[in-house]
């Protein structure tokens, strides 16, 4: 006779544990999704804010790392990021990157390469476009 089978009527402890654990997991998942469903928020257009990170030196120039934060709950796909180095009001250099997606209230990191030193100029990084999923 295989191990673990219950005799008539008596439930093994493992079955109780497994059933309860499974129920807890499923109920939690349903609760999170249910709460989201009931709130019925229409997906707001994404709002991407850029947080500039470290600036480092690489082979041909410099790299600026950044984090793209989505402050709304709509997901942004194919987000175009543009970084410009300005000297006064004249454009010194421009670089771009594409982020595959930034989830609603989520963050994705990336970087931009420049040939001129970003620390010596005014650096502006912003998101310029996105696509709906």
């Amino acid at each position, binding site marked *: 006779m295989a191990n673990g089978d219950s005799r008539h009527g008596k439930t093994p402890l493992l079955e109780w544990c497994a059933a309860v654990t499974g129920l807890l997991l499923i109920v939690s998942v349903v609760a999170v999704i249910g709460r989201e*469903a009931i709130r019925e928020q229409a997906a707001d257009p994404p709002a991407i804010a850029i947080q500039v990170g470290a600036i480092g030196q690489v082979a041909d120039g410099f790299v600026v790392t950044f984090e793209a934060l989505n402050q709304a709950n709509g997901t942004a796909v194919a987000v175009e990021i543009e970084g410009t180095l300005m000297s006064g009001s004249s454009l010194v250099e421009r670089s771009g990157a594409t982020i595959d997606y930034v989830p609603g209230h*989520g963050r994705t990191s990336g970087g931009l390469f420049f040939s001129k030193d970003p620390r010596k100029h005014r650096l502006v990084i912003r998101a310029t476009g996105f696509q709906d*999923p």
Partner: protein
Amino acid sequence: MVALTSADRDYALGLGRAFGGAVLFGLPLLMTMEMWSLGVTTHAWRLLLFLALNFWVLVVLSRFGGFEPTSSLTEDLLDALAAYAVAIAAAACVLALFGLIRFDTPLNEWVGMIAVQSVPASFGAMLARKQLSTGDSRNDEDQAARAEGYGGQLFLMLAGSLFLAFNVAPTEEVSLIGFKMTPWHSLALVAASLLLLHILVFAIGLSGQKQRPDGYGTGRLFLVYSVPGYGIALLVSLYVLWTFGSTDGQNLEALVGSTVVLGFPAAIGAAIARLVI
């Protein structure tokens, strides 16, 4: 030249079947673009943990239906190692044939590629005996008996979920589907996954359908097998998503959404594992 004993010959045939199984189970992922870079883009520690867990799953699978009948833990360990070796060989052969690994490929790139591809292939290598053999059933009853216990059934669901989740997770689609679904879609998917998991194993009449243990009504069957089974599928999905970095930077709702999406194939995998093994 040393003549092969009959036992050696049987083992060699087992290895041959294992190679076939490895190629069969590994091929979809071997031909998936995202897997080729997964070896280097995944966090190294997460990948190592995943490989270690996979090895443990292989050892336990060997108790339940590996590529040759085993009768001790040592044999299971050896079989798991052999399955791994066969899987690595199969993955390396196919990747080399496709020109994805060449003589000038950097070391960590091809090691990572093969390591990651050997996971699904190793499942195939391990299960090859059950599926591809001509039915030499001397020790089959032992292995079947081990698998029938409640713990064994839970483990099989874990292994099945792991396999299907791993097959689906490396690509972008899991997250994208999660983004496209509304919360109501997700709730419906939870219900559908649970239902399918139960029906596939107990109700439709597929070969391998489980008998109800004595005294178990449908409700109890559902609560004791299908509910934990889906719980396992969800946990496995979450773990696989974490391993591949798909959970980084996501908020709770997106995380749960992706987990439920991946939980659907994982639940089917859990059901299939119980039917097939």
